[in-house]
């Protein structure tokens, strides 16, 4: 087991190296003068030259790269142009907001998509199968920012059920003392039911938006893989042995059908992390996505680079986690490794 994890981690190393090289190239080797960029539009020629030396941009590319990797190793992602604050600190304080939202979105998606896919697979050509087909086809066509806006219109403007889409917490509440950074968990630790309810209210719509977005691929995969498993020999044997339909579907088929679904989660995360940026903009969510969008508008490159790097590292780590999870669920993978 440990050997498999170690081996899988080694496979992730080239991905990480590639990520670092690409984020480096995005700033340095591209057309345009980064020194002029960092100096700002009003800078004089001497100021630009000074910055060029300060940033080491007069050195050859490989020296710059070594320097960049050194900075990264010390956790230094540079400073934001607009605020002057270190990018790493900003990302660190904003990351929990994004993580809370993304994870809740994934939970919403899984808790709808998996039962839906199973029901559709066990009752082919029934109403629920057609519903599943409709949701899956429509789900991949919905622009995530559009879903979010429609939800805001319906649940905030028309029905008045949801609070204003302005961040993680209503202005009347103060955030709970920070332990994990997740408001839902922190408020529970602090024993503050009101803050818990308030932050949950703020979370529902954005999490639902992300959930609807991620639902389609998961439901589609659950259904397809459930159908394949239900047609297999061991399910037929289990049925012939007189096991109850529930036992066959849940204990026998479901566990085997989950393997391809877990593999798809890698792709789902790729979409989810990207969609997160759009959802954060729609709901004014103070996560790293809206941080990156603000930096984009201000043409501030260091935060953006830090954001791309953070997202990519997280994505590589998530894929690693999925693979390890796969090994835990499916012993065959462990033996092969």
């Amino acid at each position: 087991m440990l050997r498999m994890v170690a081996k899988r981690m080694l496979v992730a190393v080239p991905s990480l190296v590639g990520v670092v090289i690409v984020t480096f190239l995005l700033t340095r080797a591209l057309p345009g003068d980064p020194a002029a960029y960092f100096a700002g539009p009003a800078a004089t020629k001497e100021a630009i030259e000074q910055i060029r030396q300060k940033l080491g941009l007069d050195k050859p590319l490989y020296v710059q790269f070594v320097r960049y990797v050194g900075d990264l190793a010390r956790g230094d992602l540079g400073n934001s142009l607009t605020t002057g604050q270190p990018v790493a600190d900003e990302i660190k304080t904003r990351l929990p907001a994004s993580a809370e939202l993304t994870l809740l979105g994934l939970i919403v998606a899984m808790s709808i998509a998996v039962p839906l896919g199973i029901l559709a697979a066990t009752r082919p050509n029934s109403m629920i199968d057609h519903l599943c087909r409709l949701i899956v086809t429509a789900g991949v066509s919905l622009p995530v920012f559009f879903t979010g806006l429609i939800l805001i219109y319906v649940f905030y403007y028309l029905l008045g059920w949801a609070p204003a889409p302005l961040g993680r917490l209503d202005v009347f509440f103060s955030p709970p003392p920070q332990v994990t950074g997740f408001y839902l968990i922190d408020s529970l630790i602090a024993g503050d039911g009101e803050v818990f309810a308030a932050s949950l209210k703020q979370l529902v719509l954005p999490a639902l938006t992300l959930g609807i977005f991620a639902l389609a691929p998961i439901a589609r995969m659950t259904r397809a893989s459930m159908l394949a498993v239900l047609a297999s020999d061991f399910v037929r044997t289990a049925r012939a042995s007189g096991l109850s339909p529930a036992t066959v579907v849940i204990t026998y088929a479901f566990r085997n059908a989950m393997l391809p679904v877990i593999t798809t989660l890698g792709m789902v995360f790729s979409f989810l992390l990207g969609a997160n940026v759009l959802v954060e903009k729609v709901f004014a969510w103070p996560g790293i996505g809206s941080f990156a969008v603000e930096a984009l508008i201000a043409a501030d490159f260091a935060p953006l680079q830090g954001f791309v790097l953070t997202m990519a590292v997280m994505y590589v780590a998530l894929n690693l986690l999925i693979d390890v999870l796969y090994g835990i669920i499916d012993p065959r993978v462990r033996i092969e490794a």
Partner: protein
Amino acid sequence: MRMVPTRHSGARAKPASPESMTTGRGYGFRPSPLSRLGRNDATERKGLTALSHERSASEFAHNTGFAAALRHARYILSENAVTGFAFALFLLIVLAAVVGPYLVPYDPLASDTAAALKPPSAAHWFGTDQLGRDIFSRVVVATRLDFLIAVTSVALVFLMGGLAGVAAGFFGGWTDRVVGRIADTIMAFPLFVLAMGIVAALGNTVENVVLATAIVNFPLYARVARAEANVRREAGFDLAARLCGNGEMRILLAQILPNIMPIMVVQMSLTMGYAILNAAGLSFIGLGVRPPTAEWGIMVAEGAAFMVSGEWWIAFFPGAALMVAVFCFNLLGDGLRDIVDPQRRT
């Protein structure tokens, strides 16, 4: 273009092949066209047993060629009304992109502050925005730009990813390793995030949005093309071409590439929807298209602030247009795959 041959003989009924599971595209247990397959098998068998017969030759001709492809397409369309609907929708989108700007009732950029923020009415079908611009005209005019972005980025990624993938599958060796490494590196990023980074670094222009969309789709094309080229590298027609003294490059371009084109066309249709979504998402966060240009993503962004005060139509109609276009391309891609690759339909 020969689309149909060789598929009939291998069309075994596969409930859910591993292939359809990994691609996640296979959906639905439609009644498989067994009757048609049976007929074709029968004619083929008849042809094989009576090779000297002249009639058999004409029957072979009957089952191949462009006319047969058309017949097959018509068969699929008549069986699957949804694909026909998607195709009609596609024609409508193309029409809007080509002649839309000449037909719209208002100038998409002309503001009329007296008529600002009016809900949909007979004069303004989709209402007006905060500057009094007619949203219907803007939505129709935007079709051209969105369509153009999607088509060029898909064409670009076909040139980059498709050719790189074919070369990787055909030559193997270090070509394969380099292409594979590039694809892996791109796949290590969440795709939308990478697209954001590329546009921000290269400069905030529409061209760079097209380029970024193409780059993030690169691995998909490279992989499909690689797999398809790989299984064909030692095919009979390659050996024959090699025997005739054709160079490797010529075989690659004249033999392999035309043979994998149908599958690549399906791939292009399937990724077209994603390309539009990606480009619209980028312009929603302020990358690429600048106001006041009419583009669906940016129009949704402009209308977003008015959603909380009840002026839903500003964001709704461009968003709906975007959704319909993506929906159309996805359905069309699935339908095209049914025509080109009947085995994949489950």
